[in-house]
């Protein structure tokens, strides 16, 4: 068991180290940082002074060590395009992305699980067939097309919802939230639907498959034989038993919600980290790219590790397997 835990933690650290190395290589060797920072009219002597000041003339090993040390403190230097500290930029944008991802996840779970349960209990019903057909289209459609469609219907035609931005926000300490104002909540609706739709279809399809499987099991037949109500059988017994894989997938999908928020934030001009990242890709702003890369890697690795370790608690086979090894 200890062996298993150590192996997982080792794997997680390996991923982080590799990503940090990639970030360093990007930062140091892709394009000349000095050229990116200063204009063309800066003299060679000034460039050299800046180079010395930033420590870019030290040996590679020293630079790498410093980069890793700074990365541990989440210090990625100064953005080329905004001339501001990357940490400040990311910290200012983080709440927007967090709130969007949270709303999208809640939407996907709250709608996805009931839809999946319904289609699993009544696979032949017209609604179920309609949903399965729709979900195939939903999976094949690029996210941005769905966003544009929503904007056209609800912002341009019906004018119910705003088409871009976060609406009014309230500053609480370092956190800028859109949850507390009416316009902030209205602005949240379409982006979170767009971002959550793919996860919704994924969750619904998974719950459906699991329900179909469980409904055939003996304990369900027994529950029926005991004379339990349809409702108790479906929800207390069947649905409850599908939830372990569903929770796993939801956990693993948090990472891709963060990644796909790049697209949604672009469509709705949502001022989060994804929008910051995409402008940094357009302008080859390496420090911001490196910081985003590290941040996403940390999120992904933490989630994967948590899921792995949770399995350890849930599935005794893993514990026994490693005890024998």
């Amino acid at each position, binding site marked *: 068991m200890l062996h298993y835990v150590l192996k997982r933690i080792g*794997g997680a650290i*390996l*991923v982080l180290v*590799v*990503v940090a190395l990639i970030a360093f290589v*990007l930062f140091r060797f*892709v*394009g000349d940082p000095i050229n990116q920072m200063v204009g063309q009219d800066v003299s060679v002597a000034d460039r050299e002074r800046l180079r010395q000041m930033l420590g870019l003339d030290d040996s590679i090993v020293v630079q790498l060590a410093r980069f890793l040390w700074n990365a541990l403190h989440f210090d990625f230097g100064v953005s080329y395009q905004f001339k501001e500290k990357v940490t400040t930029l990311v910290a200012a944008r983080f709440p927007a992305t967090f709130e969007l991802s949270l709303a999208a996840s809640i939407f996907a779970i709250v709608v996805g699980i009931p839809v999946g349960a319904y289609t699993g209990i009544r696979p032949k019903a017209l609604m179920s067939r309609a949903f399965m057909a729709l979900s*195939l*289209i939903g*999976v*094949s*459609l*690029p*996210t*941005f*097309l769905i966003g*544009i*469609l929503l*904007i*056209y219907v609800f*912002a*341009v035609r019906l004018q119910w919802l705003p*088409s871009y931005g976060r609406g009014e926000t309230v500053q609480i300490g370092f956190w800028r939230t859109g949850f507390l104002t009416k316009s902030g909540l209205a602005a949240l609706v379409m982006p979170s639907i767009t971002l959550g739709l793919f996860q919704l279809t994924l969750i619904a399809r998974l719950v459906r498959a699991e329900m179909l499987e469980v409904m055939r099991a003996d304990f369900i037949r027994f529950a029926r034989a005991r004379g339990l109500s349809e409702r108790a059988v479906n929800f207390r017994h069947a649905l409850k038993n599908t939830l372990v894989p569903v929770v796993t997938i939801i956990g693993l999908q948090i*990472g*891709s919600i963060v*990644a*796909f928020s*790049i*697209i949604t934030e*672009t469509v709705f001009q949502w001022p989060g980290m994804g929008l910051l*990242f*995409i402008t*940094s*890709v*357009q*302008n*080859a702003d*390496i420090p911001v*790219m490196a910081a985003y*890369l590290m941040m*996403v*890697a940390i999120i*992904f*690795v933490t989630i*994967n590790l948590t899921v792995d370790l949770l399995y350890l608690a849930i599935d005794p086979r893993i514990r026994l397997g490693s005890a024998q090894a």
Partner: protein
Amino acid sequence: MNRLRRILGSDLLWSFTRSPGAMIAATVAFGLCLCALFAPLIAPQNPFDLASLDLMDARDPPVWLSGGDHRFLLGSDSQGRDILSAIFFGARISIGVSLASVALALVIGVSLGLVAGYFGGRVEAIVMRAADVQLTFPAILTALLINGAARAVLGPGRVAGSEFWVLVISIGLSFWVQYARTVRASTLVERHKDYVAAARLIGASAPRIMFTHVLPNVLGPVLVIATINLALAIITEATLSFLGVGLPPSQPSLGTLVRTGNDYLMSGEWWIVFFPGVALAALALSVNIIGDWLRDALNPRLR
């Protein structure tokens, strides 16, 4: 002749004629590919020929709405370009990028998978570790990062003209993992078979055994993955172009057309974004359905 009969009598064709979804999808995909292939011949207008554009024709609605012009069947954009022609040429670029990037991913993934599975040991460990690390991130994120790095290498302003290949490389490099894993798994099985031992006995070199003997036997599942990946590559290309890091408006793919058309949505000129979007969705959806059908038809166990 013999080969033709084999195709006509095959299970694959039988299964094809039994699934209306696959037939419709194949018709749509084939039609779009034909339009893309023969775009210069059949498009009503050459959207790249600036001399033929007239700003007086800008933002005409589709022909069935009032104010529509019979020369612009699906309307025109802000520069007086015919939307239908732009879609034909855009599909040409979208399909080109997707095919090239899937081919690149295929070559990289299959070679690495073959080498890893055949030699094993440290080579295998390195390739599979790299695959694990890359799998931690969604493909779209990898593609974006490679894209950004390529921009930094080329330097700002020098990307112009090479966007096509920047895209192909960033999408190709983010899709190789699946091929490598599949091919490695099948190679691990194949390398212990008698025909490989026989080839080794007659003194065939390792590359020769891998590429002429093992490769044909591991290609089956790879073709299915390639079809499904093609749909993914179409969507990824469109997404990158939409995000503004793909093809420029001077050389628009379907994603770029959606990006530029999106600016006119607020003023009610929906057709500039709508028709390219529909073409893109139809292309991605039909290729996806063909891929799903192919997977089911070739591998009944997966059903």
